Structure formats: structure tokens, C-alpha cells
């Protein structure tokens, strides 16, 4: 059997332990019971001298000795006086903070949206330009060359097999001719502009023959449009063009 230590006995004496277990041990162990009895006797012998009695005026004397050295507390202000202005200041600061945050958020959102839109446009630009802008380069000399060939074929045409090729070629030349006309007018080249105007009329007539070109239509056009004269003008213009510049002149859309 393990005996109780002095600490355990002291704790038991001051009722700061598992009293029941210690009590059971003390009942069973004579040695510990003797030690505990000795401890109790020692503790009982320890007596302090009684404090000298204080009369009823003692408290007043203590207060009198203190009163002179104690500063009075500042009277507590009412909540309204003490806390109104700080409260209003905090409230105003809070409201200002919220407003700034709101406006800042809106501004940021606006700019952010613009940025997103720009990024979106940049990202999708190739798609927007999906059919890429068509660039047609019309070289005047080539155009005159092709027109001359068409006029030669028309001059010698008799209907039949050439009807549809002529019409298709006329449609093909029509757009290029319009570009060249426009450019000639801008350059104030009257000779070229006049010739291209006449050529335009002819090409329109040829292009708008849904059933192709028969012999009568060809003959009519040869007469009405003066194909021979127009062919001559085109050849003159080609010569002039070749002489004026070794480099082909281009018109671009």
C-alpha cells in the first residue's frame, strides 16, 4: 500500500483533494492516520495574533487621511453630450466611405467593361473581318487590253458560240471599267473618261443579255455603239498609256 505524501495530507486537511479516497485510506492505514493526526495538531497550533481592534472611527480616520490627496473624477457627460459629435463624425465618415466605394466601383466597372469590350473586339477582329476587305487592283493598261480584245471579238462576232463568252467577259469588265471611269474623272482626264463612258454603255448592253447574243443583237450593237470607233479610241488610249509610263497605273478600292 502506498502511503499518502505530506502534500496529499495537507491538501486533505484543507479539503482540496478527493476527500473520499483519502478518507478511506486513512481509515485503512494507521501510519498515515498517525501522520495526518500530527499534521492536524501542528496546524491547530499555528495561531496568529489577533489583529488589534479598530474602533468605529477607524474608517473615518482612514478616509480623512486620504480625502485630501484624491482628485475628484470628472463628472460623466451625458451620452448626448459625450457621444453625439463623435457618433455623427463616425457616421459621416462611414457614409462618405460607402459613397466613395460605390462611385469607385461604378467607375471601375465602367472602365472594366470598356476594356473587356475592347479586348473582345480585338479578339474577334479577324472574325468580324471574316470576309476580309476585298481589295481590287485594277490596272488601267490591263483593263484597256482586255477591253480591246472584247471589242475585236464583238466586231467580228456573228452570233452562236461567242454569245455567252462575250456576255460573261462584259460582266467581268464592267466593274473594273467603273473604277477606271471614276479615277479618270478624279484625274480630270476627259479623253479617257469619255472613252470609258462609251465603253460602259456597251458593256452594260452586253452584260444584260439574258439569252446571250444573237446575230441581230450583235449587228445592232455594232452599229449603235460604233464599235469600230470605240475600238480605235481604246487602242489610242493604250498607246498613250504605254508611252506615258513604263509602270502600270493602278486604281485601288
Amino acid at each position: 500500500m502506498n502511503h499518502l505524501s505530506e502534500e496529499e495530507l495537507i491538501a486533505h486537511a484543507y479539503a482540496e483533494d478527493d476527500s473520499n479516497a483519502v478518507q478511506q485510506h486513512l481509515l485503512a492505514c494507521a501510519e498515515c492516520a498517525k501522520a495526518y493526526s500530527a499534521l492536524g495538531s501542528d496546524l491547530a497550533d499555528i495561531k496568529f495574533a489577533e489583529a488589534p481592534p479598530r474602533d468605529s472611527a477607524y474608517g473615518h480616520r482612514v478616509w480623512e487621511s486620504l480625502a485630501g490627496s484624491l482628485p475628484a473624477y470628472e463628472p460623466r457627460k451625458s451620452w448626448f453630450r459625450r457621444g453625439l459629435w463623435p457618433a455623427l463624425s463616425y457616421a459621416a465618415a462611414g457614409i462618405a466611405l460607402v459613397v466613395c466605394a460605390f462611385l469607385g466601383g461604378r467607375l471601375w466597372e465602367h472602365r472594366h467593361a470598356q476594356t473587356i469590350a475592347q479586348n473582345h473586339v480585338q479578339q474577334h477582329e479577324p472574325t468580324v473581318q471574316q470576309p476580309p476587305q476585298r481589295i481590287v487592283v485594277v490596272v488601267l493598261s490591263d483593263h484597256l487590253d482586255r477591253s480591246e480584245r472584247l471589242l475585236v471579238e464583238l466586231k467580228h462576232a456573228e452570233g452562236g458560240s461567242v454569245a455567252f463568252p462575250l456576255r460573261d467577259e462584259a460582266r467581268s469588265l464592267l466593274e473594273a471599267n467603273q473604277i477606271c471611269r471614276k479615277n479618270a474623272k478624279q484625274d480630270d482626264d476627259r479623253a479617257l473618261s469619255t472613252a470609258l463612258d462609251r465603253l460602259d454603255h456597251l458593256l452594260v448592253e452586253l452584260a444584260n443579255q439574258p439569252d446571250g447574243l444573237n446575230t441581230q443583237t450583235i449587228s445592232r450593237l455594232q452599229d449603235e455603239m460604233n464599235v469600230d470607233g470605240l475600238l480605235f479610241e481604246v487602242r489610242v488610249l493604250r498607246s498613250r498609256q504605254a508611252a506615258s509610263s513604263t509602270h502600270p497605273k493602278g486604281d485601288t478600292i
Partner: protein
Amino acid sequence: MDKNDQAAIGAVLAGDKDAYGALVVGHSARLFRVAFRITGNEADAEDVVQEAFLRGYRKLESFESRSDFGTWIYRIAVRCALNKISGQRMDENSRVGEESNRQQHEVQLADWAAGPERLVLSGEIGAMQEMAMSSLTPTERTAFVLRHIEDCTSEEIASALGIEPNAAKQAVFRAVQKLRRRLAILRVKI
């Protein structure tokens, strides 16, 4: 908390300094008793009481109205008493340290707490116990007084001394052990 104490505290904090007088008058006697038991000296106990009420007044704004003012000022008084005897012990040690003569050293200790011969002659068992008490550290003495005389629990002692409850319990154990050994030797000599 006592309603009178509560009202007095409210009045003091509202600027009525004199209201503190009611608190001083009401709690002075109890504070003096515990201060005397810890210091063992009437004059020191009175100093402790004044110091405790002075500190209490300065800290009154931090006092929580849910607590009991009597308990609160009691703890302050215990701290003041502990500081008092700690300071005295340091003074004693410094005075002893200044003495180069071993004989003078022994005489000085005998003057501070009565020697066995004097105890035999006077037959004052209280003085013998006081000599035994002098072997305790200030914390052990204060903890023992609070436990043995004031019947405080370890938690209350810990709260008053500002230490952990287990440390308070250990302080009481050490105090009892020292006192028993010291008193046993003194009994043999007597």
C-alpha cells in the same frame, strides 16, 4: 454587489469624491485585519489599508459593477500587503549584505525575529511562530495566511496574488512544510 457600494461608486465616478468615504468606512476594518495578518505589524497594516484604498480610487473606473467591491478591494489590499513584506525583505537582505561582519549579521537576524533563548524566556508561543513565519517567502506567507486564517480557496488565493491556482496551492504546501519543520526544531530547543 451591495447596493450601497454600487451607488457610492456611481456617485464617485460622477464626480462626488466624498462618496468614496462611505466605501472606505465600510471596508477598512476587514482590510486592516488581513493586512495585519500578512504583515504582522500594526503600522504596516494601516499603511497597507491606506495604499489599498488609494489604488482602488485610482482604478475605480476599471472596476466592473458586476463584481463585489469588497472582494475587489480585498484583493488589492492583499497585493499591497505582499508588496509591503516583499519590500521589507529586500531591505533586510540589502542591510545584511552591507554587513561584512558575520557576527553582526547574526545579531541583526536575531533582532528582526526573536531568538530561541528569548522565546524560552518569554514563553510566548506566538513569537515562536512568528519566527517560523519569518522563514517563509512573502508569497508563501501571504498564501498561507489566506488559506489558514482567511479560509480562502486556492482559486481565490491565486486571484489575489495574481498567480496560477496550482502555484498558489504549491505555495501553501511549501509554507506548511517549512512551518512544521521550523516549529519542530524550536519545540526541541525549548
